[in-house]
């Protein structure tokens, strides 16, 4: 596990880079900006990168974080990479459902099933 700035931890697995949000609440503009810079610095490390975003610690977020996810996903897809989200708690998942972002993000129950889906797609 390699710590990258304060707000994420990064693990390099066999077929994906697993980025875990370490904060329980992601709210403030400057936190979201810092988070985006941290995630983008990982995304930009390689073309065709596979990223798994792990929300296991996140208990609350605002719509500004949804914007961050969309910007990150665009960057990953521009690089022909893949993005999977996982470990989203039910209250947060409801936000994804209401905004219909469940249609544009691949969401899995845990890191293992997200990684398996990437293996199946390769």
């Amino acid at each position, binding site marked *: 596990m390699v710590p990258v700035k304060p707000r994420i931890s990064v693990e390099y697995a066999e077929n994906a880079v697993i980025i875990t949000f370490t904060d329980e609440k992601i*709210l*403030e*503009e*400057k936190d979201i900006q810092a988070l985006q810079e941290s995630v983008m610095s990982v995304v930009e490390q390689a073309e065709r990168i596979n990223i798994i975003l792990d929300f296991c610690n996140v208990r*609350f977020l*605002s*719509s*500004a974080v*949804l*914007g*961050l996810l*969309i*910007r990150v996903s*665009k960057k990953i897809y521009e690089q022909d990479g893949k993005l999977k989200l996982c470990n989203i708690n039910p*209250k947060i998942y409801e*936000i994804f459902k*209401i*905004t*219909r*972002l469940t*249609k*544009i993000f691949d969401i899995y129950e845990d890191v293992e099933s997200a990684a398996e889906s990437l293996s199946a797609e390769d």
Partner: protein
Amino acid sequence: MVSKVVESTPSAIEGVCRRILSELEAKNFNQDGIFAVHLAVEEAFLNALRHGNKMDPNKEIKIDYLVSGEKIEIFMTDEGNGFDPDVVPDPRCGENLYKPEGRGLLLMRSYMDVVEFNERGNSVRMVRYKERPRLKKNLNQTQV
């Protein structure tokens, strides 16, 4: 009615929000209700800050709230020119789904039982009942 005036900075809502949530806990609102009010207050504040006061540190945001055993009522007022909530595009439709912004109002409407604006459009009134009307619950789950 409790009245607070805060400056137009992203962290200014934190203290007010904490007080509102602790009052909800004291009145035995359940965790879903507390989550909903928290989200709606954050989204309303973000709208007031960004779109209303346009991040101008010289402008203020007024928050009035009243928590009872039955409901919470919140007013949030900025110093901007206001907007027409009826012309805000639906973020769930077409290309809007891929835009990074524009979901705050949808979330406020989904998580609160009443969301209405004054004529100028610079002040929002939101209500969430402790026991939610069944119709509203079903409405939230409806896919349009």
